[in-house]
């Protein structure tokens, strides 16, 4: 195939056509494939945290813990959920510049900020949980081992999250570099 043939194939390319009602449906946020998944993630995380916060007082002796430990736990949970909300709004509008290069650079900067706040908020929430569970407690070797296990699981989760964000940002920066040569 010659290049001119390729050009004419591009210009004459016939594609399956979507009707106006199908297109109209696609303008709705509920149909957005990425936002749909983020919404589901948010609903699951928020529901689990809500259930946890409702029952932690009885289930985990919240009344016996000092006030500051309760405040730290609730603040950590709210920070974690707040970050989900920030991410949801950011992904609604990745196109922000007058040209593609500018827009991708802005999106990359926002993505970095979101990655930092996402990993930090998860770390702070994890720490808040460990602090909450370790206050007013008589440490036995088993309890100490459990606590160390919790910390280790949290660190592994954070590392995986960090790797995932790094890959996404790296991919995007790769595209920006390709564009600029």
């Amino acid at each position, binding site marked *: 195939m010659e290049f001119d043939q*390729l050009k004419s194939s591009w210009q004459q390319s016939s594609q399956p056509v979507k009707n106006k009602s199908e297109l109209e449906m696609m303008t709705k946020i509920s149909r957005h494939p990425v936002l749909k998944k983020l919404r589901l993630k948010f609903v699951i995380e928020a529901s689990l945290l809500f259930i946890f916060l409702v029952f932690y007082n009885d289930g985990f002796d919240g009344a016996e813990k000092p006030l500051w430990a309760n405040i730290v736990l609730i603040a950590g949970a709210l920070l974690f959920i707040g970050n989900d909300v920030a991410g949801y709004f950011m992904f609604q509008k*990745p196109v922000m510049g007058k040209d593609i290069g500018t827009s991708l650079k802005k999106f990359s900067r926002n993505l970095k900020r979101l990655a930092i706040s996402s990993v930090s908020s998860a770390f702070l929430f994890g720490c808040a949980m460990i602090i909450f569970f370790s206050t007013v407690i008589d440490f036995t070797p088993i309890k100490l081992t459990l606590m160390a296990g919790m910390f280790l699981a949290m660190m592994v989760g954070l590392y995986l999250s960090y790797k995932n964000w790094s890959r996404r940002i790296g991919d995007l920066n790769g595209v920006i570099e390709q564009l600029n040569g």
Partner: protein
Amino acid sequence: MKDVFLTMVDTHQAIIHKICRIYRDTHEDQEDLFQEIIYQLWKAFPDFRNESKVSTWMYRIALNTALAAFRKNRIALDFKATISEEFHPVDSDGLSENEEQMFAAIRKLTPAEKAIISLYLEDYSYREIAQITGISENYAGVRIHRIKDKLKTILTN
């Protein structure tokens, strides 16, 4: 306002189909990207001032969305064996053999190269390509020259 938008998108929807075809391999991923692009166009529509052609505006938003959108991780399958003619799908999605060959060749380029060459194939000038992508006019010319060479090699192999 929505009617105007839908008529506009309806008229130029081939642009979006072509971008989805070069940036995504499977039909499911192409459909997801198509939806994302329509949503982004609708969000950007209130700021569209008719300062550029509708197609130019659509290309900018659509390419931007395709480049910024996250791709699902898939296991890369690399098979080189020739598929027997009897198992070969005929005109998948109603595409001609030439079109299939063209999309397959463009898919082998990097994401940024796909953006630049798609604009060139649509007959945009170097100046317009530079304005849409944010690179300089001279550099757009250099890049197009290199991508054309790369595509020629892909097509002859």
